[in-house]
């Protein structure tokens, strides 16, 4: 009988963490770079065609990032998290298929549940809300972003916050998956 290289649970974990979460993180980094280096309007108040094109791409990118983040939190909360927190049968010695119980069984790794996973349960939702707001602003206000330094600065700061949240949560996810992967 042929053995599968990855289980369904493992594939969902990769979709959650690498495809969606990793994709969103890359997109956030690109959007942050784009927004902070955009060539703004000149003294006459007119931005050049390249800058306008850049804002169009920025808007599309942030829509994709917001979509990726929502899919990440939905897959995380409703598909991978239930598998992670499943309760093992009584007297089961090998907890490899029950990551939460495995983590809690070792005093050295308990913090991965009490700190890392607790943060991972909530904080990505904040990042998804923030990314959605920024996607809206970058699509609807793409010309104003070129002319309004205050709005551009506020968007850049919030994008940086969103990037840091997703990066931090991703790192915690890597720690958990290294110690107790969903198999």
């Amino acid at each position: 009988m042929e053995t599968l290289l990855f289980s369904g649970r493992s594939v969902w974990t990769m979709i959650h963490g690498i495809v969606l979460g990793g994709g969103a993180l890359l997109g956030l980094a690109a959007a942050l770079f784009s927004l902070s280096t955009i060539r703004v309007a000149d003294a006459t108040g007119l931005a050049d065609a390249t800058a306008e094109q850049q804002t169009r791409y920025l808007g599309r990118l942030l829509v994709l990032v917001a979509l990726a983040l929502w899919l990440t939190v939905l897959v995380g909360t409703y598909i991978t998290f239930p598998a992670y927190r499943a309760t093992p049968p009584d007297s089961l010695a090998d907890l490899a298929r029950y990551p939460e119980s495995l983590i809690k069984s070792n005093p050295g790794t308990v913090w991965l549940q009490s700190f890392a996973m607790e943060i991972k349960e909530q904080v990505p939702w904040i990042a998804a809300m923030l990314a959605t707001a920024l996607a809206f602003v970058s699509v609807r206000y793409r010309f104003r972003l070129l002319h309004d330094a205050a709005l551009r600065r506020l968007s850049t700061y919030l994008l940086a916050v969103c990037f840091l949240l997703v990066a931090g949560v991703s790192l915690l996810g890597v720690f958990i998956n290294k110690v107790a992967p969903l198999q």
Partner: protein
Amino acid sequence: MAHAMNDSGRMQDTAAEATHPNGAALAAILGAGVGAFVLGLIVILHEVGGLAVPALYAPAGGASGRTAIAALIWLIAWLALHRRWSGREIPMRRVRIMTGILLFLGIAFTFPPLWKLF
């Protein structure tokens, strides 16, 4: 000639869009701050034992209920702010400060070491 007219038309479109009142943008941004704060508040109230939110999906536990309620309140707050501010020019400073405070509190409330203080 046609090219010049196209350029002129594009410049007028750009200028018109560049002066879009900022209300809808700030409504989206402050709405996200409200969503973050509400999520943090629900989490910390749950952790200190003052609020029990039922699970939306039992295998995912209470996190599914807490996040779903916060997402719903975020959408309602955004919609309400949008209806109130869209088409208006809103002073940015106050919104920036409020969003910063709400975001900070929302993130801080989801930080487990803080729960032990209560």
